């Protein structure tokens, strides 16, 4: 797992909704070695404040040496990035962490909620390119409202997998949660669930999958300083009472390995 620190030029900037932005970067070394579910650490400004890099899932990579991130403007660092311009450079470091471990021959169910949709596009591409029957594969996307989901739908449709959407307010897809769709679907017995989204969604995914004896991998978040196992700052509770570190043991974990105690 080799890592690279690149000064990456912004070659495309998409304001997908009021606060959600997608940035395409020229980062050939990272693009060349990334796996779905891995992340990058980005320096949002050039000064000493905000000090730390910010972690973002790889949303997509291209064979042309490009990577995409899809993020929401939620604070100081993402606000600076949301005002970046095409042609500017971002200091990007990655790919980092353990991505999804692809269960080659199991039907796949991808569940992305809110900004958790970000890593699912990369994963959908990988899944769709597996040389096997895709009729049982399924993608479920959800968000609070239309603009959290709709702008991304076309990108997912290109892979030809079944796609369902849900919004909390019913402005796009069904009114309800991604987990409502999940429950209403007839999943094959050996379906592998892959999820990313807010903690409460991940917890429901865990309960759902464990009650049906399905294997479920989720990408989780934690505050990070280094992103590479050096600071030990990103721990989460594991199911056996110990700690796991999101940046090196994850960000993708089997839900069974994590403690769900909220």
């Amino acid at each position, binding site marked *: 797992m080799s890592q690279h620190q690149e000064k990456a030029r912004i070659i495309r900037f998409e304001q997908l909704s009021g606060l959600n932005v997608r940035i395409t970067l020229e980062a050939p070394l990272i693009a060349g070695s990334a796996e779905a579910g891995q992340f990058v650490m980005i320096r949002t400004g050039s000064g000493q404040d905000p*000090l730390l890099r910010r972690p973002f899932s790889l949303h997509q990579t291209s064979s042309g040496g490009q990577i995409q991130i899809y993020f929401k403007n939620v604070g100081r660092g993402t606000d600076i990035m949301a005002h970046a311009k095409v042609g500017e450079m971002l200091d990007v*470091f990655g790919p980092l962490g353990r991505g999804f471990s692809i269960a080659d021959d199991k039907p796949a169910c991808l569940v992305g909620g809110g900004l958790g949709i970000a890593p699912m596009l990369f994963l959908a591409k990988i899944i769709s390119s597996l040389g096997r029957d895709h009729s049982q594969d399924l993608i479920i996307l959800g968000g609070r409202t239309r603009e959290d989901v709709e702008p991304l739908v076309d990108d997912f449709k290109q892979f030809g997998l079944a796609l369902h959407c849900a919004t909390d307010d019913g402005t796009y897809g069904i009114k309800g949660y991604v987990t409502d769709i999940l429950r209403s679907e007839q999943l094959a017995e050996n379906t592998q669930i892959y999820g990313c989204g807010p903690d409460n969604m991940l917890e429901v995914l865990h309960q759902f999958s464990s009650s049906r004896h399905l294997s479920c991998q989720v990408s989780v978040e934690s505050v990070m*300083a280094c992103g590479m196992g050096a*600071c030990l*700052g990103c721990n989460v509770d594991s199911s056996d009472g110990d700690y796991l570190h999101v940046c090196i043991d994850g960000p993708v974990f089997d839900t069974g390995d994590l403690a769900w105690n909220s």
Partner: protein
Amino acid sequence: MEFVKDHDPYPDLSVNIGSLELQNPVMTASGTFGYAREFEDLVNLHRLGGIIVKGISLEPRAGNPPQRIVETPCGMLNAIGLQNVGVDRFIAEKMVYLKGIGVPVLVNILGDSVEEYRQLTERLRGVEGIAALEVNISCPNVKKGGVAFGTVPSTAAAVTEAVKKAADVPVMVKLSPNVSDIVEMAKAVEGGGADSISLVNTLIGMAIDLKRRRPVLANVIGGLSGPAIKPVALRMVYQAAAAVDIPVVGIGGIESAEDALEFILAGATAVQIGTANFINPRVSEEVVDGIGDYVKANKLASIRELIGALEV
């Protein structure tokens, strides 16, 4: 500059911390560089002056529950809780790689009692590849009700003495900045037999989550590091270096060659880079380059000319 850089002989950056010889004054600080291997893709590790590994204790420690870190203005708080694999696994699993890097490896040690420090030092005796010990005395002294060793001159001296007696390599004692009088502490550990002093460890701080009305860190308090603390660190290094005869190593908010050179002017023989490794994983090597450029541009015979050369 490029011309000079390409064709001149490499400048003399070597420094001696007592009997410990470094090819240059740039080390990586404990707890911020993992066990070095994490950085092998990004840094030419053999170009560093020295590597200080994450603090090691007698027994493995799980560390604190999450949340362990939080960003603050130009700094960060950490409450890792001294998570480490324990000395036995450290020797078995980490030293093999570390000793192969070819630069001095300093092992940072910590304990809850003088006796623990002593046992730990014994355990590290004779282990191949250890160039020196760095004694972290910013730890709670469980026998003295949890007051840190590093804030009481007599206990700091006692830890130093115990480690020094048991050690077969030079002993560097790392001072806490959370004291009224850094000079008194520096003298106490010098008196205890320390071969050198490094400072500063983190300043104790706290952050509050207003929405939840709770401390951000599970541990409530944590250690402040990064550029925010640089002025305090520089002052303490200046005061300590003036007060003791043993070499002093400067730590605190160093992000660039300029920062490092300021600490050297203030009296530091070498420096350690901590938090900056997280922001720019390549920083340690870049600082080595920057110091080399400075030595050449200013036509110094050696970086040693600059140690304590501040005109006051």
